[in-house]
């Protein structure tokens, strides 16, 4: 048995020893591992050492001995030792105190070099500490980010709430549609004005909620609506398309409305449209009062104008005796001035009635070329007097829906303007057919106009650089616009200063 044990102990990789206590303690037994651990050249050299030699710190030995003496054993004590070759290392020692039959005390123990382990331990601790610091830092960063996010969210909520408050408090109705024309936003005023609740309206197409009628009570089709145009990008800048019609409420009643539709753009892309509208019943009433006044005023202005015309023409006719050339000249001046006055009043009244829809623009299928030839004949003398060529590129046209009287007025206005603003060259009238429209263009080689003028040209009372209509009030083109648009068409101009202008208008082909 003891042989097996001896073998066992001898070959253990931990140091196994027996030594005596006290400052002079020495080794009684030691296995090969002890020799190796302490870097002894031989067992003999090792056994010749005193135990205290192996301790780096004598106090550690004393404490160790005291403890083992008191407790009888010490387990896994870490001690700083030194080999015979002077190499310092950390060891873990476990030992028990034994007494032999003679009463001699000795210690039996095992020694392990735990230097590597200690190193790894301390590295681990260092690593762990570093990790802890990193985690702490990350946590703080995270906290910071979280706080920032919460702030952003709270800001967004605030902005959202504020926008909603703004939207709700806008007195005008606001409806926003996405690129498919679905209503995605609506404010309280829109609710009140239309009678549809926001809940009922969201998710519907705009024309299910915004039903438009013109002055005549005719419903306006969605394809012709401004929202449709805004969404299909036929308006490429966020410009306003303002016109006045009626909206029909949920309950079928209607109110006059003024609305502005703009596309919502991100960069070049149209992502939706917004319609801002307002009930203009009061303004319309004021307008009506103004129009009624206009009717009366026009009538009352015509009376003295008729009187002047009558009296002056009588003198010019010779009813008061022969008239000297000079007198004739002066009287003609008065006569002409009065004629302008009469034209002015006529234009005023025409505008007033067109705007009110009181002049029924009754479209009839007819041959546009005949109307144009009539107008050309009427104006050819004036063109001749200025040495201007009046050319008509007549082609065969499909029948168009026109109101003859109105269109003659438009063509007269446009050709008249062309003659007025051209000093030399030609005026060319031509046509183009585009899908369902016949386009008529009147091009001159006149003085042209600036982009700014072009933009405002068709507005009421716009006079431009020079008077733009015979009445000098700036109504001629406005009347033309009302007439053309009343037939469903459009009127526009292309011009370059110094080169000339081309006015064009479109009329629907009669089906």
């Amino acid at each position: 048995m003891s042989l097996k044990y001896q073998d066992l102990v001898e070959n253990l990789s931990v140091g196994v020893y027996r030594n005596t206590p006290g400052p002079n303690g020495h080794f009684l037994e030691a296995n090969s591992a002890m020799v190796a651990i302490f870097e002894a050249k031989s067992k003999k050299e090792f056994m010749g050492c005193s135990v205290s030699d192996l301790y780096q710190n004598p106090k550690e030995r004393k404490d160790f001995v005291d403890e083992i003496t008191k407790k009888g054993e010490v387990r896994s004590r870490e001690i700083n030792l030194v080999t015979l070759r002077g190499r310092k290392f950390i060891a873990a020692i476990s030992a028990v105190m034994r007494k032999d039959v003679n009463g001699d005390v000795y210690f039996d123990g095992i020694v392990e070099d735990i230097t590597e382990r200690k190193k790894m331990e301390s590295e681990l601790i260092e690593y762990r500490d570093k990790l802890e610091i990193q985690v702490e830092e990350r946590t703080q960063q995270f906290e910071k980010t979280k706080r920032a996010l919460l702030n952003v969210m709270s800001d967004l909520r605030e902005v959202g709430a504020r926008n909603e408050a703004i939207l709700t408090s806008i007195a005008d109705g606001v409806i926003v549609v996405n690129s498919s024309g679905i209503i995605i936003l609506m404010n309280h005023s829109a609710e009140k004005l239309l009678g549809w609740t926001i809940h009922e309206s969201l998710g519907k197409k705009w024309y299910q909620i915004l039903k438009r009628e013109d002055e005549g009570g005719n419903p306006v089709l969605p394809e012709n609506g401004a929202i449709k145009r805004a969404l299909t990008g036929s308006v490429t800048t966020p410009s306003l398309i303002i016109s006045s019609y009626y909206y029909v409420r949920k309950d079928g009643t209607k109110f006059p409305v003024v609305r502005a539709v703009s596309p919502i753009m991100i960069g070049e892309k149209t992502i939706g449209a917004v319609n801002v509208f307002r009930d203009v019943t009061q303004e319309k009433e004021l307008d009506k009062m103004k129009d009624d006044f206009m009717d009366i005023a026009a009538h009352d202005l015509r009376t003295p104008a008729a009187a002047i015309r009558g009296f002056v023409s009588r003198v010019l006719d010779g009813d008061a005796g022969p008239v000297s050339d000079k007198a004739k000249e002066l009287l003609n001046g008065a006569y002409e001035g009065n004629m302008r006055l009469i034209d002015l009043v006529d234009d005023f009244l025409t505008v007033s009635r067109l705007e009110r829809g009181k002049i029924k623009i009754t479209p009839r299928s007819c041959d546009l070329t005949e109307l144009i030839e009539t107008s050309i004949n009427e104006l050819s003398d004036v063109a001749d007097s200025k040495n201007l060529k009046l050319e008509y590129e007549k082609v065969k046209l499909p029948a168009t829906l026109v109101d003859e009287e109105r269109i003659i007025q438009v063509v007269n206005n446009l050709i008249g303007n062309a003659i007025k603003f051209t000093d030399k060259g030609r005026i060319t009238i031509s046509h183009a057919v585009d899908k369902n429209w016949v386009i008529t263009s009147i091009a001159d080689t006149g003085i042209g106009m600036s982009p700014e003028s072009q933009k405002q040209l068709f507005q009421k009372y716009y006079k431009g650089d020079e008077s733009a209509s015979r009445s000098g009030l700036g109504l001629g083109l406005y009347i033309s616009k009302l007439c053309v648009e009343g037939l469903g068409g459009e009127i526009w101009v292309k011009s370059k200063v110094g080169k000339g202008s081309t006015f064009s208008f479109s009329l629907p082909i009669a089906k």
Partner: protein
Amino acid sequence: MATILLIEDDNLLQELYKGKLRDEGLNVVVAGDGKGGLDLIRSQKFDLILLDIMLPGGINGFDVLETLKKDPAFSQIPVIVLTNLDSEEKVAREIGAADYLKKTEVTPAEIVKRIKGILKKKK
């Protein structure tokens, strides 16, 4: 000499038309409102009536015209409507006006021409 009844409320225009017609050899009687005009028609014979539409006193030119055309005693008298209103021609002719002239668009000389034309046709 033919006698013309002028029913017109504005005094300037009364002077104008009266003066011209007389200078052209026509008799002219003037009424300033609808009732006065109708009274005159019932008391005198007229060859032609120049009729304004906007008249004071509650009876306008159309009322006068209708009254005349409904009454066989007077329905044959040709009536020329002479007015500032510019969209009533269809209505006027339907009620029976022989012509419709706008005051600002015709000279007195032209009015006389029309009158003489209609009187000639009557004969």
